[in-house]
């Protein structure tokens, strides 16, 4: 691989990795009360057949 190719690879892979890690970090560190709407946290989710 040539130096220019190495640069393109590091820039591309680095960008998507940083974006991915930042997004996951941001999601996981959001205050739970603001983001967790546990509509389906009950044991019986409403989308299944009930007798």
């Amino acid at each position: 691989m040539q130096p220019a190719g190495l640069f393109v690879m590091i820039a591309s892979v680095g960008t998507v990795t940083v974006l991915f890690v930042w997004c996951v970090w941001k999601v996981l560190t959001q205050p739970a009360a603001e983001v967790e709407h546990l509509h389906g946290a009950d044991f019986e989710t409403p989308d299944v057949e009930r007798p």
Partner: protein
Amino acid sequence: MASPQKDSWGSRLGVIMAVAGSAVGLGNFIRFPGQAAQFGGGAFMIAYAISFLIIGLPIGWAEWAMGRYAGQRGYNSAAGVFHCLVPWRGSKYIGVLGAIIPLVIFMYYVVIEAWTLGYTVRFARAFFDPTLRFSTVAESQAYFAGFVGKDGDGTALRLDLDALLPWLVIVCGLNLVLIYRGISKGIQKVCEIGMPVLVILSLVVLARVLTLGTPDPAKPEQNVSIGLGYMWNPGKTLVVAADGTTLAEVVDADPAAQQAKAEQLAAATAGARVERKTVLSQLADPDLWLAAAGQIFFSLSVGFGVILVYASYLGPRDDLVLSGLTASATNEFCEVALGGLITLPAAVAFLGLAGVAGQGTFGLGFNVLPLVFSEMPAGSLFGAMFFFVLFIAAITSSLSMLQPGIALLEEALGIGRKGSVGLLGTLTALGTGFVAWFSRDLKALDTLDFWVGTFLIFVLAMIQIILFGWFFGIDRGWEELHRGAALRLPRFFRPILRYVCPAFLVTIFGLWVMENVIGWGRAEPSNYVTDLFEKGNPVAWLSIGLVVIVAAGLAFTIASSKKYPDDLSA
């Protein structure tokens, strides 16, 4: 007005993983590397990044916003969403495309999913029985042809571990069982477990590939560095014949040596010359933009109705902006950082550039890579891992394709999960059986993939982004997108959503139709058109008939339902 929505996601991370799981598929690991390498990594990535910003993210966000808006008003199907957003009696029939497309794609996608499972088990068996490893490309090709039934209709449907049938039965059953478990217990659970497993296994395979070095010291030109250069070097050095045909691509760590080798090769062939393609000359090629935009578009799974339906199960103040961005970022990570570093370097290290160049998606995935893993130290183990990664990527996508159909049947017919899964299971079993039976040259699969999996997706995506920007309204859409959002979008996305994205998409679609349907620049239209109108291929016509039957059935279901009154206030 329909009754308020009652189905829902269990957590924010769950819906993100589900959308990401829907997007991450075989294309991330097999199609993307081939596309990037064909056009030169540097130029391709520029067009790819621009397409991501002006097509991928905007269409995704539009779907998230429209889906959640309609979901709060009791509509979960794409037909319902369209009906809710546009008070016109025909809108629900346009929206039904959002159920037809994923349903028909499911019918052939599970066939490919079954291949990945079959190959996983084949490599797991080879771990204990080395005679099952492949030793030549011809052997690998012959195995694939026999496995999928390329040589004759119906030949893959035999009860044999080295044939499609047993894996197809398992995969179809698994999909139906998981979808029956519902949104939170089925799709969400699978994706919450499957996506981390996919990333971890991919990282293990990646570590193996990047430490391969030069597997055969007698062939120093076959190594990982050359493979990475083939994928990522911004320019291309080609040896071109007198008639313009590319004879070979030359890659070397030293640009001067690369040029010298190319000139040496050209001198050996009468009339051949060396052609150097720079980043700028590549960017001037419309084919590159078409390829980059197409890859972003299909890779992110935007535009075919799944995100629309998934978002309809969100709560009124659930975040959309960060969730959409995270799902897209997960897909891009899997595609660029994992797929971009695994597939081609491994293939080039064992087979050289000549063995890899010109391979299509299936050729690379199911002819070249099986041979690569057969030759790699501990390759059976890594082969099983790699194909299992593809299987996870496939099942998280195929599950998402069933939900739009389930949502439509439940909404329109007022039936429960058991009834809708039963109906859909019967329909998909017939469709999948059709695709699996007509396996000669993969004609049915190929025809459906072209007309539904490509052409109709383009159409629905254009309709959706125009619907968002011009009918739902950019102000209302912007407000919906930011209700409960953890991030605020920069305002320059407003004109992108309203003007740039639709214009870019229409342009790309126009170019795509001219090149792939009409056959612009070629002597005759593409095979997909000649199959239908010149050759009158019966399997191609039967495939179109299948789509028409599904469309008519779903349209009739909607027409006979009282859930979509012409007067929305009713």
